[in-house]
């Protein structure tokens, strides 16, 4: 199996003049992108003496951002992309935790990140990288390709390490489903701070497609227009973006007619959304996939067409399909093989959590069978087979997904306790966060919310913060979630 860089170079060598990226009306060929990758690598190596530099990428979706990713891998290093539009304090935590050797930034990088970085990093403006050639000596590659930070239950985001071998495997194995070619145009909607955004880049550019970053204020809220304008053929996002198109009355053959594939992952896809989609675009093939950041890529996938999708709608969500080659999906329940926690077994799981051995040991279990050792990741998702189809039916713990963004409710509670509330407990009610707090003295909620905006993603901001005399407890002394659900529905304390 080829490494991701080898896959990319194969495309450069086979079709140097094909467009690798079309962005803001400009076209960049594979040969030009390869040159930019080398210049980026050269700049990183000039700045850092480390053999395998750690590179923080604070650049919005653009050719420079993609070259920063490839350039880091060329040096043998590890990159960590951040969401430049994310909460400032959260990004500062990532900088402090990752401790980059080099910070690659552009004009979208918040000043707080630049102010945070001088002590720990060499800073390079990606728009001012000099056109120098990369020296030809080989660079030994780190086994880690990148680190992405997700919501953590300790109140701070946690880094998930993706191995270069696993990323190569995922890019290679998913091609059997998508069959990407030179004629394809692959959308790049997801922020690069998320693994789906990173995979857009490798999936497209390692298979010869043209990558189309979906940027600009209008395209971000009305993305179907960008599909039409750029003649996108493959779309990948969380289902919430499909919902955004539905709400904007954008799901039509006029706007989405160029698409041949839509790939959804990261949250439940709904039967209603598929009805709307296939009604407007019967030519489409839709993949509903399941995977976690900790499993690098997709572990199950369901290929849906207008003719077969109803057979996968036996629940309130769409079935997540069958095991992708190289992965085994098990349901760990109380006796029944038909339901339980979804456990992913395979050789290409994440290397673990960034600088957190204990959490890594707890989440990734080793299994021995004779001399063979495999690893299993317990996802915390609850799965159930109905009529032979596997459905993901929510979480077993307090992690929730709101519009595709992973949020640990414990992180919100932790913030509220740090703000002075003696006790706090948040629930997801009607798709929104509702926090309950105990409060014995005056606390300025407006001030708490202002600070919260700086530290938590917008989806984690509670719709309501309700003061209760004391959090209701069940017979085991644990917070009574059912009682909080009742209170959230308007019941009296």
């Amino acid at each position, binding site marked *: 199996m080829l490494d991701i860089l080898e896959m990319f170079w194969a495309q450069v060598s086979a079709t140097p003049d094909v467009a690798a990226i079309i962005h803001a009306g400009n076209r960049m060929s594979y040969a030009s992108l390869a040159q930019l990758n080398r210049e980026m690598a050269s700049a990183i190596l000039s700045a850092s003496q480390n053999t395998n530099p750690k590179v923080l990428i604070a650049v919005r979706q653009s050719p420079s951002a993609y070259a920063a990713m490839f350039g880091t891998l060329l040096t043998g290093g590890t990159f960590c992309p951040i969401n430049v539009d994310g909460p400032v304090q959260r990004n500062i935590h990532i900088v402090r935790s990752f401790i980059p050797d080099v910070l690659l930034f552009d004009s979208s990088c918040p000043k707080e990140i630049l102010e945070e970085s001088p002590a720990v990093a060499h800073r390079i403006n990606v728009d001012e990288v000099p056109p120098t050639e990369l020296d030809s000596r080989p660079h030994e590659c780190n086994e880690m390709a990148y680190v992405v930070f997700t919501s953590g239950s300790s109140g701070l985001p946690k880094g998930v390490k993706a191995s270069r071998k696993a990323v190569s495997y995922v890019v290679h194995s998913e091609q059997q489903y998508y069959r990407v070619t030179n004629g394809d145009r692959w959308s790049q909607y997801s922020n690069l701070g998320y693994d789906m955004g990173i995979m857009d880049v490798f999936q497209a550019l390692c298979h010869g497609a043209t990558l189309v970053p979906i940027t600009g204020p209008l395209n971000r*809220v009305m993305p179907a227009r960008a599909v039409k304008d750029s003649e996108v053929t493959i779309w990948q996002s969380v289902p919430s973006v499909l919902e955004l198109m539905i709400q904007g009355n954008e799901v039509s053959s006029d706007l989405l007619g160029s698409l041949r594939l839509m790939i959804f992952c990261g949250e439940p896809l709904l039967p209603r959304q598929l009805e709307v989609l296939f009604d407007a675009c019967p030519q489409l093939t839709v993949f509903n996939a399941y995977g976690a950041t900790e499993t690098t890529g997709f572990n199950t996938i369901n290929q849906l067409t207008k003719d077969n999708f109803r057979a996968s709608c036996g629940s309130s969500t769409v079935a997540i399909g069958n095991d992708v080659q190289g992965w085994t999906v098990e349901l760990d329940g109380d006796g029944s093989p038909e339901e339980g926690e979804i456990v992913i077994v395979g050789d290409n799981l994440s290397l673990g959590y960034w600088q957190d051995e204990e959490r890594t040991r707890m989440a990734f279990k080793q299994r021995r069978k004779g001399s063979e050792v495999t690893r299993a990741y317990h996802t915390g998702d609850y799965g159930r087979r109905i009529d032979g189809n596997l459905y993901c039916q929510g979480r077993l713990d307090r992690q929730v997904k709101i519009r595709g963004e992973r949020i640990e409710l414990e992180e919100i509670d932790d913030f509220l306790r740090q703000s002075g509330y003696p006790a706090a407990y948040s629930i997801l009610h009607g798709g929104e966060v509702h926090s309950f707090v105990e409060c014995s003295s005056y606390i300025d909620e407006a001030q708490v919310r202002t600070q919260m905006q700086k530290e938590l993603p917008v989806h984690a901001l509670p719709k309501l913060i309700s003061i209760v005399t004391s959090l209701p407890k069940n017979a085991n002394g644990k917070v009574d979630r059912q009682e909080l659900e009742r209170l959230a529905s308007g019941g009296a304390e």
Partner: protein
Amino acid sequence: MSCPDPYDIVADALRSKREDLNINSGKYRTHGWDSFGHLAVILALERTCGIAIDNASVEEYATMKAILELFEKQCYAEA
């Protein structure tokens, strides 16, 4: 013609309460005002104020302050 209350329009678009909004409210700052909320706000402004939906308007009307200024301009012009 009386000028509609911009707070009511934005609260209605975001499905939130009027009292949850203030002059500092804005996209990615206020509960519900994410990309979905912003789309709803822009569509509501198109309906009530006739703004054109383009890059400039989507970027400009991302804060309560900018929306208040838009209403002030429109009402002042009508008066």
